[in-house]
Structure formats: C-alpha cells, structure tokens
C-alpha cells in the first residue's frame, strides 16, 4: 500500500479513536443486576427526553458497581445492598426500595415459611422437602453469587451474621437467572427481587405475611433493601439530570408500576446517610 494512503488511513483511525463523542455526552451506570432492569427503563425514557445523551447501563453485581464508582469506570454505581463501612466514602442516593421475595415453583405445594425455616433451608440443615410437605425429594436451593447485593441483603436480613448459605446451593449470577431456574425446577427454592416476581414463580408468605408493597411499607414484611445510586462526590451535569429524573414523580411512577417501592416512603434504613434531598 502506498505510504500516503497508509498514513491517511492511520490518521482517520486516530480521529475516530480519539472521539469520545461530544464531551460528556455519555456516562456509565453500572452495578447491581437487581437495579439494572429498572435503570435500563429509566435510561430509556431519559434518553428519549434528551437526545444526544447516551446512558450506558451495565450489570456486574452490587459490589462491582461500588468498585466501578470508586475507580471511575462508572459515573453512577448501582447497589442493592447497604454500603459497608469501607465503602462509605461514596455519595449515596436512595432511588427506590425493593422487597426480597422467597420464591418456589408455581406447582409447589408450599405456600408459607417461617423465617427460621427459610434460614434452615438455605443454611443446609433442612435438605429434603418431606420435612415441610408430602414431597420426598431433595431441595434444590438456588442462591446468588457472593458479590451480589441481593445475596448480601438476604444474608443480612435472613441468615444473620455468622450463618452461611449452604455450599451445596446452586449459584447463579442474576435475579433473572434465579427466577428462570425456579420457574423450571419444581423442587427448587430461591430468592429474588420482589419487583421481578412474575406469574412464572410463586412468592411465599413469610410468617404468614404476604410480600407486597403495603406490607413492606407497614413494616410487617421485613425483607426490604434500598436501591442505591452511588457517585464519587456530588453529581453534576447530565449525571445529576439523570438522578433528578429518577427521583422525580415521573421516574418513581415508572418503576412503581414495575413492582418497586418508591424511594420517599417509609423511613430510611439505619446508617444510610441520605445526602441528596
């Protein structure tokens, strides 16, 4: 290839390469796979209102989102669990609340469990369904992966400190996958975001209390965790516009329809330093 053609090609490539697009016209939101579908929804509507702005939503899990926010790989990190003490340097905004539902296959005879029973099943003490129903079959326990905010919330709210989830449990890396497995395996049990429960699985009542928005707001259903948006320092520019949209009446209504609980209602969880009104 003639030298000048080659250098032209390289120059062109370099121009394209260095264009990050118009400055600041795109930002990344990464983290919790529980928050992700809702973030995608928010981003979709937000981008319709602001053509030319690109919001990139990635998954990876709550811990990944926290890491990404800290390192700058993402401008907004998403988490579905409380921050640990060594993560508190980040600016956190509650954008919604979400219940945790214990789910089984729709054909399962089980309808209710006590918190202690849930703990024993996921801890590996109760191994066979015959302890609770007439079915004589091993329980297929499904859990999320270690870095998941959903798992972190489940660990904190259900298992309690020091009690591990059984190492024989099947591990999957998103709520959707857990739901798929439980929807297909009549002998399985798992936990997912309440907002993701559909007709394909059945959410159990916990100590007789149904998992619903009212019961969460009235504190009768104990399994609830915050959905957090995390930024390094106060948000500015398009990132702030996005967060404002998410917290607006329209943004909140958008996800309430999908099963989330709006951020404003109910008291904030302990130690969550709300720094964005």
């Amino acid at each position, binding site marked *: 290839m003639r030298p000048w053609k080659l250098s032209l090609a390289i120059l062109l490539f370099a121009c394209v390469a260095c264009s990050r697009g118009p400055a600041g016209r795109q930002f990344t939101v990464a983290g919790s796979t529980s928050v992700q579908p809702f973030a995608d929804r928010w981003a979709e509507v937000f981008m319709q209102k602001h053509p030319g702005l690109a919001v990139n939503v990635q*998954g*990876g*899990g*709550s*811990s*990944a*989102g*926290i*890491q990404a926010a800290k390192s700058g790989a993402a401008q907004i990190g998403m988490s579905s669990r409380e921050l640990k003490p060594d993560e508190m340097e980040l600016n956190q905004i509650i954008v919604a609340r979400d219940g945790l539902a214990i789910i089984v296959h729709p054909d399962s005879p089980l309808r209710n469990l006590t918190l202690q029973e849930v703990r024993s099943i996921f801890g590996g003490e109760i191994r066979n369904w015959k302890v609770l129903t007439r079915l004589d079959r*091993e329980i*297929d326990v499904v859990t999320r*992966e*270690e*870095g998941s905010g959903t798992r972190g919330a489940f660990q904190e709210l259900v298992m309690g400190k020091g009690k*591990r989830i059984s*190492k*024989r*449990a*099947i*591990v*999957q*890396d998103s709520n959707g996958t857990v739901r798929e*497995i439980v929807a*297909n*395996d009549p*002998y*399985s049990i798992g936990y997912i975001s309440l907002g993701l429960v559909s007709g394909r699985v059945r959410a159990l009542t916990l100590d007789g209390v149904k998992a619903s928005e009212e019961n969460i707001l009235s504190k009768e259903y104990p399994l609830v965790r915050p959905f957090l948006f995390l930024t390094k320092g106060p948000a500015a520019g398009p990132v702030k516009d996005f967060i404002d949209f998410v917290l607006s009446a329209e943004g909140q209504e958008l996800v309430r329809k999908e099963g989330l609980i709006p951020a404003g209602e109910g008291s904030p969880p302990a130690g969550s330093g709300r720094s964005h009104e």
Partner: protein
Amino acid sequence: MNKLDRDERLVKLALLVLAFSAVAVLAVITVFIFGEGTPIMFKHGLGKFLFGSDWYPSEKSFGLLPMIVGSLFVTFGALVIGVPLGLACAIFLTEFSSRRLRRLLKPVIELLAGIPSVVYGFIGVVILVPFIRTTLGGPGLSVLAASIILGIMILPTIISISIDSLQAVPRSYREGSIALGTTRWQTTRMVMIPAARSGIIASIVLGMGRAIGETMAVIMVAGNAVSIPGSPLSPVRTLTSNIALEMGYASGEHRQALFATGVILFIIIMVLNTIATVTSRRARGKRKTAA
C-alpha cells in the same frame, strides 16, 4: 550500504517487531496473571489454597479444591463422551467412507466448531437439564450436563486432528496390510490406529485443553455450587466459572485469588499444550523415519 539495502533492513526490522507481537502479548498476559496471582497463593499457604475445600471470599477463605475437582470431573466426563464419538467419526471418515461422503460430512462437522458456546449452553439448559432432572434426578444442573455439552463441543477438535493424523499414515501401511489379506477393519484396528496413535493422543490432549478452558456453556448448565460434587448428578463449579462469576466485583485479596485461579488454569493448559505439541512432533518424526 546504499539506500535500497537500508530500506530493506528497515522493512525487516519493522516486520520483526510485528512478528514479536504474538510473543509480546503472551508475555504481557503471563506476567500480568502470574504477577497478580502468585503472591496470594503463598500468603495463606499453597497447600491450603490448592487443597482447601472452603471457598468463602468474604471470610477470606480461599480453598480451590472444589473447583479443581470440578474442572477435572467435568473434563474427564467430556472426554468419556467426546473421545469415542470423535474417534469413531474420524475413523469412519478416513477409512470407511467414499470420497463423496467425506466431502459432504467434513464441512458439516466443521460447522459444529462454529456454533457459539452460549448456544450450546442454551440448548443444554432448555433440553438437557430438564431431561436429566426428570429422568435421573437431582437439579439437572450437574456434572453430567456439563460433561455432555463439553463432550459435544470438543468433537470438532478431536475429529479434525485425528483425521489429519490418520491421513498422514503412509499409504504403504494400509496397502501392505490389505495385501496380507486382512479386512478393512482389521487393517484399521491393527495398523492404522497404532500408526496414528501419537496424533490421536495429541487431539485428545488438545480436546482436554479446550474442555478445561470453556466457560460460558459450563456456567449455564453446571450449577456452580461451591462444593465437591458427590455424584455426576450434583451441581459443580469449575475453575473458569469461578473466575467469571466473581470477577466483576472482586477487589483486594479476592481479586488476587481469582488471578491465582487463572494461574492454575494457565499452568494446566500450558502443560497440556506442551504434551500435545511434543506427541504430535514425535508422530511427525516417526513418520519421516518410517516412510
């Protein structure tokens, strides 16, 4: 030295730099992975790292044994399925089929190699896993499911390399055997296969390497439980799945532990690749002296 010579030297140097790209990339990857992964292998004790059966990163417990056993079981299972099937196809295509049939079937089998691993995994999830669960028990996500899917995925490797080594056996071998009055099968069994043995072994070893390194399909059908599988129907986690599941968020020691998992994987695959190269080189050498 005139301008022409100088230009030629420049070109040669430029090409040498390009040629080193492969080596450079390999070196960077190796240095990176080993650099990040080796310290932690010794920090808590190499023995505990390799043979500890407790993988619980949030409590700083990094025992890789369940994953090592998992990878071994799944790979072994894949070979049990892939080797007989693959060898049979290779033998059939070289010794027992007409040229037309071979020309028809060879591209078909190479198509198997082109199907993305996620598609294999998906078929495993929607067809194989429920089948195992309803007919054999267990959650379906199991060593068995992973072995079957991996066995199918390594078929193209085993088949194409075995075909090459069978075709490379000198014709005189086959003709001499037939001249002695043997049947085609006797020729194949007693002459061709032993003659192609090194190449066939190389293909199996390479298939092993591919099976150990596969990630996506395995994550979808194996269950990923962090325990040593007690039976083929138990869920299992491999070294590759371990990295993929926890990579996105691991930090500090946890991240180093995942790199260390990568180191172990790396070493196993390098060893397998070297064995394969040595055996196939020996095959070529033998043939040169024999013919």
